[in-house]
């Protein structure tokens, strides 16, 4: 029976010691630990949440970056196409211009050549005229010396010169 009869002495000490233990632990020991651990738990929970937000933001950034790269690439392609079209156009234009210029230069050269030739012909004619005058002078001198009829001939020549020859020669 002694096993199931609570002993008053032990009850007294139990209330005293356990009560004291509970009082001290509840005042100074356990709240320190539980509060700190709860604070840490909250901190970790918050850090995890922040990390998630950051990850989402990073994903967003990556997506944005990819979009930007794609857009840039498309633009680059477009620019390249435009540039090559421009090149073709410029080359074609330049060809046309060059052809025009060449034909202009050619025609100018032709005109110059024609002018030069005319000048040369005129020069030759003048020289031929001079030569023929010199030849005629020599012939006349010889005739005049030989025949003596100088006076008659001079008159005859003067008559000829006055009407038609003068007009023709010039």
């Amino acid at each position, binding site marked *: 029976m*002694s096993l199931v009869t*609570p002993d008053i002495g*032990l009850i007294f*000490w139990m209330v005293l010691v356990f009560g004291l233990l509970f009082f001290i*632990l509840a005042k100074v020991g356990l709240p*320190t*630990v539980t509060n700190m*651990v709860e604070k840490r738990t909250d901190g970790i929970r918050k850090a995890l949440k922040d990390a998630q937000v950051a990850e989402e933001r990073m994903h967003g950034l990556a997506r944005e970056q990819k979009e930007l790269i794609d857009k840039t690439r498309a633009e680059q392609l477009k620019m390249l196409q435009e540039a090559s079209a421009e090149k073709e156009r410029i080359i074609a234009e330049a060809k046309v211009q060059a052809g025009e210029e060449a034909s202009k230069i050619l025609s100018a050269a032709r005109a110059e050549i024609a002018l030069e030739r005319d000048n040369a012909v005129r020069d030759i004619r003048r020289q031929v005229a001079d030569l023929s005058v010199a030849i005629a002078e020599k012939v006349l001198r010889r005739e005049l010396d030989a025949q003596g009829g100088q006076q008659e001939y001079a008159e005859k020549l003067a008559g000829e010169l006055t009407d038609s020859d003068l007009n023709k020669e010039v």
Partner: protein
Amino acid sequence: MKRFFCICLLLLTLVPCAPAIAASAAGKEASDTSEINVSDVIFSHIGDSYEWHMWTWKGHPVAIYLPVILYSKTSGWHVFSSKHIAEGETYEGFRIQSDELKYSNKLVEVAPDGSVTRPLDLSITKNVLSLMISSLLILVIVLLTARWYRTHDSEKKAPEGLAAFMEPVIMMIHEMARENIGEEDYKKYSPYLITVFLFIITNNFLGIIPIFPGGANLTGNIACTLVLALFTFFIVNLFGNKEYYREIFLPDVPGFLKPIMPVIEVFSALMKPVSLTVRLFANMLAGHIQILSVMCLIFIMAKYGGLLLGGMTIVSVAFGLFLDVLELLISFIQAFVFTMLSSIYIGLAHQKE
């Protein structure tokens, strides 16, 4: 930490031997009379006593004699060492009553006419000393743990050493309180629940360790578990909310049940501490009795000769080891169950409609 576990493991391997050693002392005493009284051996081990008996050396007991504190209605206060009454002597009119009489193994006051009365006995017995040692141990452990949290940036840093060992234990009960009591009130009660858990599990473990400072059967003593259960009972019923008392006295039941229900509810409220008391006390007591019985088998077999004795020794030690390990498990389970039920009872008293 590793060293700590090594020491624990070493102590654990010693555990099954110790009852054998203790029983061998008893056996030696008994061998003079060639008969061993198993129930005496067992009951002297699980019961309380005025001295802390450790072993018997050359026929003399090696024990720690504890102070006796008594208040007698006739002669007032008495304080003396239990050494004076250890061998059944009478000292200042007091003696330890022998086994077969009323108040067996307790201190009684002997009147001049030979009649005995029981004085108010506040002696530091084996269980009281064990209670003080275990409480001091818990206090030191928890305060050292708390000091780590105060001296470190514990919001950023993971716990180390003792704090790393204690944090999961403390937080397990703290979280259990949160689950069972609810977000609003749990912080008020979690220190109590953690203290109860640490107290029970420490004393359960100390009870398994057979040598001083372990070996006292505190949680297997009904006075101890009764006080713990009454703490829970008072916390539940003093801080219960309106809803809790309405459920007891004005429950929402058909008219003819209205007078019966309060009786049943009050009875149920009173039975809760009783069930807590008996569950813990009986479990721990039964564990101790089992181990001691298995060890006593060796000494019962002693008179049947060497072969049987040898065989039984091997079987008993193996089975004792098994029971000890089982007891470790039960120590944890009982501490946990007591704490969990306490938290559930407190939670029931704080339910919102």
